[in-house]
């Protein structure tokens, strides 16, 4: 018996969301008195994978094969199912990120395994039954899901728990050679368009976001400067991306990206319910707005009622001072 976590590599590194999934898998394994195993598909450096030991992984099944480098949900489902059999996994854990979501729902069918998408806490086991909490209604409520199937699948909402690391601990990396046929490959990647030099929003711990209150795209210099100082990603509200003041990939909210950073600074965003749906999982929310009646203040931890054009430059200065002192 084991708990298997699906771990993804991007640009040679383990994705932050995957480290969280592996840690979650280790905690589940611990509570079940069993072993935490991870599966990695595609080329990766064995020394990098061994560091998964720091979050409690004992063994990494590594299919070190360049043909698996591109995410293909049908192929990955088959490979992870085989890894689950190899490891004797009764619980499979993935991140509730784009690839994790798709592969978990497919695995649920393939293994007839009850699946809880986007868990925000560790599960509680009673006999063969598992209960775990997830957010529903766009963060306006939560639900406890109950799963009693033989194999169980959980995807973990990013940034829901902070992995505790045991420095220096290593996982054993074992070659995993699943059987594949040409017909298992269903996706051909024609081109990749990476946005370089910025932090991907979904992986960012700090996010600086701005909206219509900034009055025009020419005023984003100070937002970018603040983000750069803080090592934060930049985001924006829907109206701003709709009129192309900012690129569409920065749009957070119900119809854009859902993010859960440690800190979300909203500047000149009123906080419509559709926007909140995409960011209300953030640990700490700071709202800067001239309108003291802006609904966003109701969802904020810290608020400044003031003009962004005066507050943001001051914030940059104060942050620089803070950085110099720490």
């Amino acid at each position, binding site marked *: 018996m084991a708990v298997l976590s699906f771990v993804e590599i991007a640009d040679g590194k383990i994705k932050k969301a995957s480290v969280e999934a592996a840690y979650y898998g280790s905690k589940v394994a611990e509570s079940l008195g069993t072993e935490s195993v991870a599966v990695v598909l595609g080329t990766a450096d064995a020394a990098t994978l061994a560091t998964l030991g720091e979050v409690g992984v004992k063994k990494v099944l590594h299919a070190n094969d360049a043909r698996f480098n591109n995410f293909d*949900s049908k192929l990955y489902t088959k490979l992870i199912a085989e890894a689950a059999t190899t490891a004797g996994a009764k619980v499979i854990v993935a991140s509730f990120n784009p690839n994790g979501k798709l592969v978990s729902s497919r695995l649920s069918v393939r293994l007839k395994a009850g699946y809880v998408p986007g868990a925000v806490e560790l599960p509680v086991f009673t006999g063969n039954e598992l209960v775990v909490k997830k957010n529903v209604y766009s963060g306006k409520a939560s639900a406890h899901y109950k799963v009693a199937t033989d194999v169980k699948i959980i995807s973990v909402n990013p940034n829901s728990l902070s992995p505790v690391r045991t420095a220096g601990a290593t996982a054993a990396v074992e070659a995993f050679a699943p059987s594949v046929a040409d017909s298992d490959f269903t996706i051909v990647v024609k081109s990749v*368009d990476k946005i370089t030099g910025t932090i991907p929003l979904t992986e960012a711990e700090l996010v600086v976001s701005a909206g219509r209150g900034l009055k025009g795209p020419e005023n984003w210099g100070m937002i970018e400067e603040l983000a750069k100082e803080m090592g934060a990603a930049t985001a924006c509200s829907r109206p701003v991306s709709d009129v192309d003041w900012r690129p569409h990939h920065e749009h957070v909210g119900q119809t854009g990206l859902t993010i859960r950073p440690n800190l979300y600074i909203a500047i000149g965003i009123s906080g419509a319910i559709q926007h909140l749906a995409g960011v209300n999982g953030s640990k700490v929310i700071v709202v800067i707005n001239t309108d003291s009646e802006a609904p966003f*203040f109701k969802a904020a931890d810290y608020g400044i009622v003031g003009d962004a054009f005066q507050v943001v430059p001051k914030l940059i200065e104060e942050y620089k001072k803070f950085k110099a002192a720490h």
Partner: protein
Amino acid sequence: MKILVPIAKVPDTTSRIAFIDNNTKFNPDGVTFIMNPTDEWYAVVRAIELKEKQGGEVVVIHVGLADSDSVIRKALALGADRAIRVDADPTDAYFVAAQIAAQAKEGAFDLIITGKETIDYNSFEVGGMIAELLDWPAVAQVSKLEIENGVATLKREVEGGTETVEVKLPMVVGAEKDMAIARIPNMKGIMSAKGKPVAVVPATDDVKLTVIANYALPDKAKQIKYISPDNVGELVRLLHEEAKVI
């Protein structure tokens, strides 16, 4: 080309969320139900755009009870040709996916387009499950979809960028922003929707893999701390010392 679009019925985004029966059921009192936004704006509309360009048929499928009629009629008013309603209460994602996959098999569809996720359970489960039940490829986070000679060219979001990929039909596509421009049904569409066929079929099997034990509302509203715009340094201090996020 035959395109199937699963549509879900969800509480309107601005609804007040409450639960009944000892917090085991959603309270529908006074709630307006709508078609799930990404199903409507991107999946249904893109299917219709593809049909307008290349011909074929767009069928919407919904798993739900008779009170879902307005949601189905809206999809027909937007331009879907016909609808299938599986007459069952959708309580589990696998159950819903199994119903849709069974109808998809019967209808010999080339393409299934789903929305990004429903705004009630926020899960994006059903699309992947249908794909696995049919043994089809699936691509999610798709912001662009073109079909030519039985091959789909898709732009999918990946961490820190986008990828353009090709997949042979049949397949399942998870649609999101930028895939289509949302439409509003016009009078002609609304009138013609009344005459379009809605087939009501019984559920095929009754396998459920999960149960929702109970729901809960957040404990209480957040307590906000206001900081004077003349004392921005205090915010930095609080973020470091109190919130511990920097």
